[in-house]
Structure formats: structure tokens, C-alpha cells
């Protein structure tokens, strides 16, 4: 594969690129767990620029950088920053690149990370741009699937908000490279957009019960209350996609969730072997270590 300088969109990566990052993540697993020390990024500084809150993504980047011996600087509170005074993103980036060796950017505008990569002389990693892309989440999802199930010829159910979830859209694009069969489980109002359905991948409309019986992976997303006109409508739908321990009695499917969950996975699932969502959060660290090593070394 060609070594990449920025990571902006999952669309920029080939299957070979993805496999390369995932096998590199394997090399960092024990370091991510704190079982082995590595100082390969000693003296390097990562700037976390989060214009929207995302505690897990920010912390896992911090953890990844520090486990590799590097340091992290943060934007701090937006209210107290120059952005509150009306500074442009472009100016902020041009300043921050004077202080750091790499920028992780989360911004509410779609395309902001691509723009940042064009004006910065240091690598930029996209940690979510509006409803656009979140490629490191997709890579950690793929890594979880690889570690806990298998990537090739996978049967996976995507459950919940398939319309607005960028996590789901990017994951589908990546899974298309691995010959997956995708079961779609969602309320009518939150179905997958047409342009994604048109992709060359095997889609099956399904109900939750059938999907759990037939698939290797159940990927659950939060149904966002704010998408519904009234709370009662939301309650009806949210309840129908709740996974409980009882439903998994005769299933080996692993349950994934990008987190945070609200009520779509019952707490009694947490203790089952099926539940991998907290390990999925952990896998974000070796995957982000692999990405940081890729762009910084």
C-alpha cells in the first residue's frame, strides 16, 4: 500500500490499505493494554481539535498517543477559545500546526477535515466532520469484527437508525470491500438512504429476531430521540429494537455498538460472551495507534 499522510475518508482507502492498518493495530495490542512500553512517538505532539464534544474518540486518541510515548495538547473549552471571538477554522489550523506534529480534527461542518488537510503542512486525521465521515470509527469497527468474528463473507445486521448514522454508512462502504451480506433492521422512518442501497453489496431487509438467528454480527446504533416528532412515536420504535439476554440464548452473534447506548441493549447482555461493545471501545486504541504511527513515522 501507499503510505498515507492524512486520514480523511474511508473512501480514500483500498481493501489493502485497510488490511494494512488492521494488521499494524495487531502489533500494538499489548502496548494498548499497557503490557509493553513503546516510545516510538517520543517528542511528538498531537493536537486534539474537537469543536464538538466526543469524549471517547478524544480520549482514545490521547491514550493511543501517550502509549506510544507522545504528548497531546487539547483545544480546551470552546467558550474560552478564540473561536468564540469569531476566528476562522483556517486561521486556527494555521496557528495550531505551529505547536504540534499532527492534528486530530472533529468539526461540525462536512468537508472540514479535507479542507484542513489542504491547508496544513502537518498530517490531519478526521475524527468526525458533521454528518460526513468518521473513518477511525469505521476502522475500529472493522478491527473489532476481525478480532471477534471474521471480515470476509460476513453476515452482519445493522440495527436502529440507518438513515442518519454516519457510522453505519461508512461501515457499509468498507464492508463492501469484504463481500459482506448486510441485514437491515430499522423503522420505516429511519431506513438506509437510496444512494447507499444502490451500492454493489448484498442487502436483506429483516426483522430483529431473524437477523439475530442468521448473522455473525449485530451492529446496534442509538435511535436518536430528536429525529422523531413526538416522544411517544420514539418510544414505540426504540422499544422494538431493544436487545435482551433472552433474545441471545441460542445465538453466537456478537453484539457491537459505537456507544453511547441508551436503551437499545439491555444491561443483562453485558455479561454474555456475545457482548463486545466495551472491547470495541478498547480496540479504538490500537487502531488509532496504528494510524498515528502511519502518519507520523
Amino acid at each position, binding site marked *: 500500500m501507499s503510505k498515507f499522510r492524512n486520514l480523511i475518508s474511508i473512501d480514500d482507502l483500498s481493501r489493502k490499505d485497510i488490511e494494512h492498518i488492521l494488521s499494524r493495530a495487531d502489533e500494538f495490542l499489548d502496548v494498548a493494554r499497557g503490557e509493553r512500553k513503546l516510545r516510538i512517538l517520543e517528542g511528538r505532539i498531537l493536537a486534539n481539535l474537537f469543536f464538538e464534544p466526543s469524549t471517547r474518540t478524544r480520549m482514545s486518541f490521547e491514550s493511543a498517543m501517550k502509549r506510544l510515548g507522545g504528548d497531546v495538547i487539547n483545544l480546551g473549552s470552546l467558550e474560552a477559545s478564540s473561536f468564540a471571538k*469569531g476566528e476562522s477554522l483556517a486561521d486556527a489550523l494555521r496557528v495550531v500546526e505551529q505547536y504540534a506534529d499532527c492534528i486530530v480534527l472533529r468539526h461540525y*461542518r462536512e*468537508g472540514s477535515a*479535507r479542507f484542513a488537510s489542504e*491547508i496544513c503542512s502537518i498530517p490531519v486525521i478526521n475524527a468526525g466532520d*458533521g454528518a*460526513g465521515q468518521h473513518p477511525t470509527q469505521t476502522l475500529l469497527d472493522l478491527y473489532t469484527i476481525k478480532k471477534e468474528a471474521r471480515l470476509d463473507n460476513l453476515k452482519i445486521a445493522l440495527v436502529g437508525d440507518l438513515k442518519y448514522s454516519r457510522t453505519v454508512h461508512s461501515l457499509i462502504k468498507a464492508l463492501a470491500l469484504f463481500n459482506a451480506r448486510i441485514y437491515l433492521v430499522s423503522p420505516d422512518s429511519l431506513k438506509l438512504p437510496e444512494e447507499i442501497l444502490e451500492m454493489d453489496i448484498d442487502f436483506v431487509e429483516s426483522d430483529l429476531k431473524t437477523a439475530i438467528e442468521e448473522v455473525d454480527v449485530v451492529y446496534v446504533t442509538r435511535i436518536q430521540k430528536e429525529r422523531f416528532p413526538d416522544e411517544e412515536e420514539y418510544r414505540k420504535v426504540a422499544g422494538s429494537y431493544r436487545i435482551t439476554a433472552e433474545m441471545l440464548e441460542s445465538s453466537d452473534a456478537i453484539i457491537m455498538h459505537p456507544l453511547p447506548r441508551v436503551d437499545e441493549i439491555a444491561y443483562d447482555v453485558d455479561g454474555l460472551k456475545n457482548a463486545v461493545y466495551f472491547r470495541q471501545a478498547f480496540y479504538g486504541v490500537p487502531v488509532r495507534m496504528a494510524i498515528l504511527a502511519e502518519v507520523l513515522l
Partner: protein
Amino acid sequence: MNLLTISKIKDGTVIDHIPSGKALEVLRIIGVRSGSKEKVSMAMNVESSKMGRKDIVKVEGKYIGEEELNRISLIAPEATINIIENYEIVRKFKVSLPERVEGILKCPNRNCISNDPREPVLARFRIENSDGVVARCEYCGKKVYEIEKYLV
């Protein structure tokens, strides 16, 4: 057959085989606007054996660059260009789709970074040609199907 009522030009560019009704958009693409100094003549809805009806634009005293002309293909893929010198056609060619365009289309996604007035960014699109011409924003990925609606 109706005769064209616009006269020949001495030097300049003639853009022929523009789909009927698109001449004004063609002028916008090549930068001819209210207040521009070019001498322009235009015929709309002229009979055409090839297209049924077509528009024609003649720009006197201006040789429009090939790259600029290729942008016309976004809305007029069949357009032909005649470069005129001393009333003679010295070069004739068809437009071809550019791979990308910058600064002539506006992204329909209001939340795209290219629509943020504070940022020094020029909207840039990759051009795809499958079932018609489609422009895809290189920043947010949004596809534009009705290109003439988003000309700057």
C-alpha cells in the same frame, strides 16, 4: 427552414449546439455577465436537424480557453466550439467533460465547509458521467444532479 438572424463575427468564439434554453447559463459559465464588455450575440430556440431546437452564442473579440469551454459540457455536453479569425473558422472542436471544476458551482449542502463564508475555500467538484453529468463535492461528497441550479 428559418434563417439565423444573428450576423457573422469577425474574430472570436461561436458556441453551437447548446441545448435549447441553456444559452444564458453558458454565458454565466464563461463569465459573461451584466456589465461585461464583450460583444455577445445569442440565438435561442433555433431549429436544428440534430437537436430539434438549440441555442447559439457568439462572443466577438474573445478567444475562450479550452479549459473554460470544457466547463460548458457540464450543461451542454454536445456543444461545439468554433474559433473564428477574420470571419473564417480556424478551429472547430467538441467540448469534453473536465475531471474537476473549481469556483463555478456552489455545494447544495448548506453545512459543507465550502459554504462557510468565514473560510478561504473554493467549492471544488469532481465530475462523473454516468446516466448524465453529475458533480460530486470534493469536500462533503454531496452529489449535484441539476448542475445549472448551482452555478455560481
